[in-house]
């Protein structure tokens, strides 16, 4: 085929493309996940009974705003990673800064408290469940963000998945904070950060597997005498390689059945 023919074909009837599609699709993912996160906490966990009173405590705000900052930074990073050639640059710092601040506050709080209080500050009463609750509550946002990313073009699928995980966990943790009874900075520094890290890790693995928008079908590309690049198991089978599974209907014409 001549390249000019392909170009003519692509240009013919090409519809206008809406602007800022990546930003809008990812915002849509958050808009889908956030109400579900609120619903999960509202029905499965229950909000703090003293929520009104607690609104005057700075610690509750820290617990709420820290994940929110993570969600925002994750959003900025992931929407850049979704576009080929866009640099993330200083936005990485926006993702790291809230964690560093919380860690610093935790260190100060620990140093100022007697050592006997440390276990209580580090583990509270809910350390066993905190990480998994955050992961569970962030799941709707996470899935929606992956679906959005699937329609975009992340050239670094693993990193983009991780950023999507951090964004989703930020949303989940912010809502979980309205249930969570803990009020110590060290608890936040370990278990909230842990929940976000867990989702980022899961996002990295899932992103690598699902977010590639190209395929390297080893079988179709082997040239004589060269070893084939072996596709990792998460690569979808190339279209050509799938044909035999579909039976005789797809057999090329002219070849005996």
């Amino acid at each position, binding site marked *: *085929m001549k390249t000019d023919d392909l170009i003519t*074909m692509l240009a*013919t009837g090409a519809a*206008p493309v809406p602007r800022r599609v990546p930003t809008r699709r990812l915002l849509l993912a958050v808009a889908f996940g956030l109400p579900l996160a609120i619903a999960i906490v509202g029905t499965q966990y229950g909000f703090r009974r003293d929520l009104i009173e607690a609104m005057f405590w700075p610690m509750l705000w820290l617990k709420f705003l820290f994940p929110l900052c993570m969600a925002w930074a994750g959003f900025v990073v992931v929407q850049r990673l979704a*576009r080929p050639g*866009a640099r993330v640059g200083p936005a990485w710092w926006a993702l790291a800064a809230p964690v560093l601040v919380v860690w610093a506050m935790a260190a100060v709080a620990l140093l100022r408290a007697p050592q006997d209080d440390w276990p209580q500050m580090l583990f509270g009463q809910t350390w066993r469940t905190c990480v998994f609750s955050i992961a569970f509550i962030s799941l709707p946002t996470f899935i929606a963000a992956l679906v959005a990313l699937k329609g975009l073009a992340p050239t670094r699928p693993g990193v983009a998945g991780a950023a999507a995980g951090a964004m989703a966990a930020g949303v989940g943790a912010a809502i979980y904070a309205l249930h969570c009874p803990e009020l110590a900075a060290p608890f936040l520094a370990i278990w909230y950060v842990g929940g976000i890290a867990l989702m980022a890790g899961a996002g990295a693995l899932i992103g690598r597997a699902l977010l590639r928008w190209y*395929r390297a079908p080893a079988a179709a590309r082997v040239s004589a005498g*060269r070893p084939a690049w072996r596709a990792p198991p998460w690569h979808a089978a190339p*279209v050509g390689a799938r044909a035999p599974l579909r039976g005789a209907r797809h057999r090329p014409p002219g070849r005996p059945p």
Partner: protein
Amino acid sequence: MPRTPLGNEAQSNDTEAVLRDLFLQGLAGDATAYRDFLQKLSRHLRAFLGKRLFGWPDDVEDLVQECLLAMHNQRHTYQSDQPLTAWAHAIARYKMIDLLRAKGSREALHDSIDDELELFVASAAEASDARRDIHTMLASLPERQRLPIQHVKIEGLSVAETAQITGMSESAVKVGVHRGLKALAARFKGAA
């Protein structure tokens, strides 16, 4: 970052401005500008990929087409706040690495990150024919994708006319074109 010679940089900037203009008009729905854009872009891609795939001259034109199709399918991921060369280079590099991996060539993966600007420096108009035939590949698509592409993209009919001929709804025609191009992009691989 190594400095490119001044002449190259100026040429790259000019090309960036021209191509970006055409592309933005194309994104706004101007098919002529879009066609012009793809044509100019294909020349840069050909030179860029030709230089890097000198060991496999037969693959250059295939990869040019693959890149064009990928850029068309992903054109909604370009935002006007970023340089077009960065966007196009990222996709071309991604496709090239994909090909080189498939060829089992680890050596060729050591690609300088700084060669982004080079994409718009050179231009090659001589197109050899790719080894694939679009009509053969189209024939392998299911009818609900093949017919919309046939009518809208090759014969140049409007979506409404196509809907009338095929008896599909207009949105089904649009979806068919969209999914069909995606499927073609995937099939390009298998046919090479």
